[in-house]
């Protein structure tokens, strides 16, 4: 009598409850079945301002607020749709042409279906985020319609129907419903509801069902500036692509199915990792996987199999007889594929004749020697788990442009050469070849199918003429994903209302003074580079009665102005860091804070966060404390000014004396760090001098090192370490710290071997201490720069330092290898680094100045912050360097100088020379030496390259050489760069 019936059948509500079954595979390869309930309802509005029926049932939140309708009552029309229309794109449309939807000239009143949003999220998170951004924009009028939850538009999956077919059907059903629903409004002009898709099958079915549907191209053609927009529509498999005309010819092997890859990885037969392209050889890539101590090599187009730098790929290791040494040859894409025709893809196979020749030589070389000990495992890409495609800056390869397309407006294929040399040429179809030649342009990659040697992409927008400052700067910012748009109003609204008139409150009773120490009486000063406006830090020192010294490091109190989780904080956390280019600074925080209210400018009172120590004259820490404070800096020195004061014995004022005290203490501190094994590493640093009026670069100088620089550095390190300890004590799980991993010893194999062979020097890499010591012994008495050269090369073998959340690592992993410190964080530059701002908040909570804000205590959230700022930090560095490289090129423009340089890398057909004076390195190929290209013998054992014939030279690794430096515009990359000509070897 009491059987347990399946309850759903007996339930009157059952009609409106459905369930969805998902199958998900976990990281470990298990498959999970997830059943989710779905409650179907009829109160989900269509959100058209025309519809009164929906207005009555509009949903309200807990405080009774309703969401106003989004879609306009009089949407724009087109030639074929005079009554106006609402657009309903399918997933495919967003995936392939998100740029179109972000246009200002068209694409308003768009219905984003829930199923589309879901699919998009699964396929591409960045695109999903962009679409969410659009739905939040008030003027674009994008409305998310939850079709899966509305009773009338819910579509159960049929037996034997694929998920894709079901989802397409759901889209069509929603479009049909919208059409019927809007008719009921009885409005005079009922807008048409248009489905947008690039999927032929879906379009055909729509037609059969009587649903109005256009392909992206057919729709765009109806718009006013359709011509221009047409270029933004990518080629798709289903579109009228080139592939239709050339059936059957497939260059690449098919990818494995996801499940095959998963099984393979689980059983250890396949490996997963990030694909990296060699900077010197576009046909060679490598991938690090846990199963092998050395990186796996991936050689040649077939094995690279359509992966692009940064993609997450799955590889299969090749049999041992195919293992090879890493290439010793430079192979550049533009030199080899120069004359390929983007339209016809001439040549019978994947590997062109020239490529084959280049690779042949490579193989000959490896076979001629017994290389068994050196051979590295090689692998082949069998699938891509996640593409790392983004938008790329490049320019059209002039040689790929046909004469006819220069004139006419017919659609034509051209190659775009990305600025980033690691990215392959992209084939682009455009109607505006004539306008785009000679411009910096932004393009994306859409697809790379088996039938195409190069990936295909579409044009996004033009940045301007090549080599104009505006275009090149924007190109650089886009390339490194630097957020450079002006701060939105919501961010500026978070600034203090007083603006530049803001002052430290005069009354000590003011809440701003709560728990702040009054340090205005101290002789504090700041020391920074010339012209520094965002002064993060200031210092003071004063003798104590017991013979010890009180030292204070005072840091701008940014966390006082930037409250957690407001719009300004969110923006700063996304930007992550201020980016410094040669002629431009892209701030993390609005100017008002960065250069005024937070900046510890001289002669005015400012809020600060102070670290105070009692130090013995030998710089041993006796006491230390942290406090929020109010300070008044006495003076803002440049490094040079401060150095002059210190050196000038006649200056005996208090400020100078305290700088001298700090100087002496900093030497002790530095010695202590060195004794602990801190590394003194090097990277070539130069400064571009600009003419003050036109801000054109006129000269390049290497940065001079002053004692005052290391003075500031030492105390900042001390402050950072002290703060790191404190916040780790208070928040063992969530403290935001910075670590520098110990590099695997194999990273130094090559360098150690080179030093042994060429200079008979040994490099010990067992610990940072051993490395520091042996780097000290790497000297060439006749060549003072040799030691710096080795340090530069050693630096490149290191790991990158990274921010992390204390709870994610075991304590021994906290170590900062380079600084030889057990624990470290960033605290001293909150104006320009977000990590420091978080550390400020954590320290403020640790000293009970304020309660802990959830944002700085939630580990998941902090991990996301770390992940982002690590990327931003790296991009900022790369952008800065690229900017210097660009300006060095500009400064050298039209000039010709001879400089000394050093050989830092050697190949069988060229070598890389570093010129310390300009901090630049450049490749000199054999064919640059003489015409015709001289014959060369390369001895990989002794790193020697000797040429015969048209020119006779002998070049060795580490050798000092004389080179002629000129500027040249690289016709293929469109970059003005430095060109080096070999003059002689010393």
């Amino acid at each position, binding site marked *: 009598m009491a059987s347990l019936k399946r309850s759903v059948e007996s339930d009157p509500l059952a009609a409106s409850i459905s369930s969805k079954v998902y199958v998900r595979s976990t990281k470990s390869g298990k498959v999970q079945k997830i059943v989710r*309930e779905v409650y179907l309802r009829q109160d989900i509005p269509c959100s058209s301002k025309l519809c009164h029926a929906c207005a009555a049932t509009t949903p309200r939140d*807990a405080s009774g607020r309703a969401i106003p309708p989004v879609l306009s009552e009089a949407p724009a029309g087109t030639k074929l749709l005079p009554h106006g229309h609402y657009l309903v794109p399918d997933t495919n449309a967003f995936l392939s042409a998100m740029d179109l939807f972000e246009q200002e000239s068209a694409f308003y009143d768009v219905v984003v279906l829930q199923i589309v949003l879901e699919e998009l999220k699964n396929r591409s998170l960045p695109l999903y985020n962009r679409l969410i951004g659009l739905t939040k924009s008030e003027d674009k009028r994008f409305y*998310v319609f939850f079709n899966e939850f509305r009773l009338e538009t819910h579509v159960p999956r049929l037996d034997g129907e694929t998920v894709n077919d079901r989802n397409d059907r759901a889209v069509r059903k929603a479009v049909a419903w919208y059409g019927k629903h809007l008719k009921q409004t009885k409005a005079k002009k009922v807008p048409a509801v248009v489905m947008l898709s690039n999927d032929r099958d879906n379009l055909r079915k729509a037609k059969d069902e009587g649903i109005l549907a256009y392909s992206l191209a057919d729709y765009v053609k109806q718009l006013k500036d359709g011509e221009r927009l047409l270029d933004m529509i990518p080629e798709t498999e289903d579109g009228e692509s080139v592939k239709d005309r050339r059936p059957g010819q497939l260059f690449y092997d098919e990818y494995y199915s996801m499940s095959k890859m998963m099984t393979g990885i689980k059983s250890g037969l396949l490996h997963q990792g990030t694909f990296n392209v060699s900077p010197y050889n576009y046909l060679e890539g490598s991938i690090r996987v846990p199963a092998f101590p050395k990186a796996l090599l991936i050689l040649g187009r077939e094995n690279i199999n359509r992966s692009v730098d940064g993609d997450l790929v799955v590889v299969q290791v090749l049999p041992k007889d195919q293992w090879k040494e890493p290439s010793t040859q430079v192979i550049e894409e533009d030199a080899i594929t120069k004359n390929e025709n983007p339209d016809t893809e001439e040549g019978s196979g994947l590997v062109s004749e020239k490529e084959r020749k280049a690779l042949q030589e490579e193989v000959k070389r490896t076979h001629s020697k017994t290389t068994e000990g050196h051979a590295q495992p090689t692998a082949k890409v069998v699938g891509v788990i996640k593409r790392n495609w983004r938008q790329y800056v490049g320019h059209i390869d002039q040689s790929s442009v046909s004469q006819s397309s220069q004139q006419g407006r017919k659609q034509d294929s051209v190659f775009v050469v990305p600025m980033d040399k690691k990215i392959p040429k992209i084939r682009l179809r455009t109607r505006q070849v004539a306008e785009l030649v000679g411009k910096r342009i932004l393009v994306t990659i859409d697809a790379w199918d088996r039938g195409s040697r190069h990936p295909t992409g579409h044009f996004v927008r033009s940045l301007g003429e090549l080599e104009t400052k505006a275009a090149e700067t924007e190109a650089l910012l886009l390339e490194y994903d630097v957020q450079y748009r002006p701060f939105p109003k919501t961010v500026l609204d978070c600034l203090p209302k007083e603006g530049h008139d803001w002052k430290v409150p005069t009354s000590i009773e003011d809440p701003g003074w709560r728990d702040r120490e009054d340090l205005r009486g101290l002789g504090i000063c700041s020391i920074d580079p010339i012209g520094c406006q965002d002064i993060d830090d200031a210092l003071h020192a004063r003798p104590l009665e017991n013979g010890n010294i009180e030292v204070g490091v005072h840091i701008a109190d940014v966390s006082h102005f930037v409250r957690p*989780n407001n719009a300004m904080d969110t923006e700063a956390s996304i930007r992550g860091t201020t980016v410094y280019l040669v002629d431009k600074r892209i701030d993390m925080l609005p100017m008002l804070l960065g250069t005024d209210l937070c900046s510890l400018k001289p002669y005015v009172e400012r809020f600060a966060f102070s670290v105070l120590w009692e130090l013995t004259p030998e710089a041993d820490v006796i006491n230390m404390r942290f406090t929020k404070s109010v300070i008044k800096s006495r003076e803002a020195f440049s490094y040079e000014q401060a150095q002059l004061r210190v050196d000038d014995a006649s200056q005996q004022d208090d400020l100078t004396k305290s700088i001298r005290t700090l100087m002496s203490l900093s030497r002790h501190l530095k010695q202590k760090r060195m004794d602990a094994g801190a590394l003194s590493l090097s990277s070539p640093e130069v400064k571009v001098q600009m003419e003050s009026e036109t801000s054109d670069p006129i000269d390049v100088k290497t940065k001079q090192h002053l004692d005052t620089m290391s003075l500031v550095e030492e105390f900042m390190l001390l402050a950072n370490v002290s703060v790191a300890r404190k916040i780790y004590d208070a928040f063992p799980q969530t403290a935001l710290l910075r670590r520098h991993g110990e590099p695997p010893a194999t990273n130094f194999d090559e360098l150690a071997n080179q030093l042994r062979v060429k200079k008979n020097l040994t490099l010990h890499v067992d610990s940072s201490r051993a490395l520091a010591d042996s780097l000290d012994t790497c000297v060439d008495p006749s060549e003072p720069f040799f030691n710096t050269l080795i340090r530069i090369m050693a630096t490149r073998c290191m790991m990158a330092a990274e921010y992390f959340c204390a709870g994610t690592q075991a304590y021994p992993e906290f170590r900062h290898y380079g600084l030889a410190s057990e624990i470290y964080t960033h605290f001293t530059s909150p104006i320009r680094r977000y990590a420091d701002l978080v550390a400020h908040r954590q320290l403020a909570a640790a000293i009970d100045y304020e309660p802990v*804000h959830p944002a700085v205590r939630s580990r998941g959230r902090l991990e996301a912050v770390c992940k982002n700022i690590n990327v931003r930090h790296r991009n900022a560095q790369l952008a800065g360097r690229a900017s210097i490289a660009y300006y060095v090129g500009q400064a050298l423009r039209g000039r010709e100088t001879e400089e000394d340089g050093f050989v830092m890398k050697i190949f069988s057909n060229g070598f890389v020379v570093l010129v310390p004076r300009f901090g630049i390195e450049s490749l000199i190929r054999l064919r640059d030496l003489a015409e015709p290209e001289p014959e060369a013998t390369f001895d990989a054992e002794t790193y020697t390259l000797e040429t015969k014939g048209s020119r006779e030279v002998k070049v060795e690794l580490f050798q000092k050489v004389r080179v002629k430096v000129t500027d040249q515009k690289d016709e293929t990359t469109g970059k003005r760069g430095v060109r080096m000509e070999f003059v002689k070897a010393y």
Partner: protein
Amino acid sequence: MPLDTSAYSLALLRVDGRRWNELRRVHAQIRTQAAADGSSYLEMGHTKVMCVVTGPSEPGARRGGTTGGAGGGGNNAAEVSVTVVVAGFSSVDRKRRGRGDKRNLELQSTISNALAASLHTHLYPHSTISISLHVLSQDGSLLAALINAATLACVDAGIPMTDYVVACTAGSTSTYAANDEDADPLLDLNHQEEQELPSLTVATLGATDRVAVLVCESRVQASRLEGMLAVGVDGCKQVREILDRVVRDKGRKMVSEGTVERGIGLESMDLD
């Protein structure tokens, strides 16, 4: 995979299509096992639990679980002993939980204390009421479902009680870290919501505002707690209505089938 809980603000719809103040479908049955003293089966969405009550019985004849948390207690009142068995197939990851599992022990003692507050245990000194709960499927709000099922089974067993102990969960539409002042409170969380959002379980004594259980294991701003609690208590009232109907329907059916004589006990209930 469906969208996550952050999509709520787009159209005020939750991951399964509900509004902020809606319960999932609750389906319940009592007297599912004729042989038991009291039994019930309850579904809240896809969370499915079964309950069997044995007793009150004298200590010598003590049957059922020995491990459970025991409420009431003392020699002058019956001991409420609860065991929870979580079937391995009940959750997606199919992990088996042992008898001594910490979470289980905590569930048991919470349920035991909650029921002991309503059951008139003083009528049964020196005896034990054994409540045995089986979790067949988990999709969030597990504790709430267990309490509701146990209440029904106790009603079926005819143990006198002050009122139903009814429970449900409440949450908030934005995470703790987001610290969104405008977050809506949520009623009756499913598994995905429980994973992503702050939540609490509240049980009340019948339709009153007397809170019998309040468990909050996630971090949430105190300012949001009040709204969550209010929604939770309101949800409990709805749950009570549903459970009460189940009991009455069953009673009516048993009378009409002649299983039970129209008697004193049932007369006080509205049978039409």
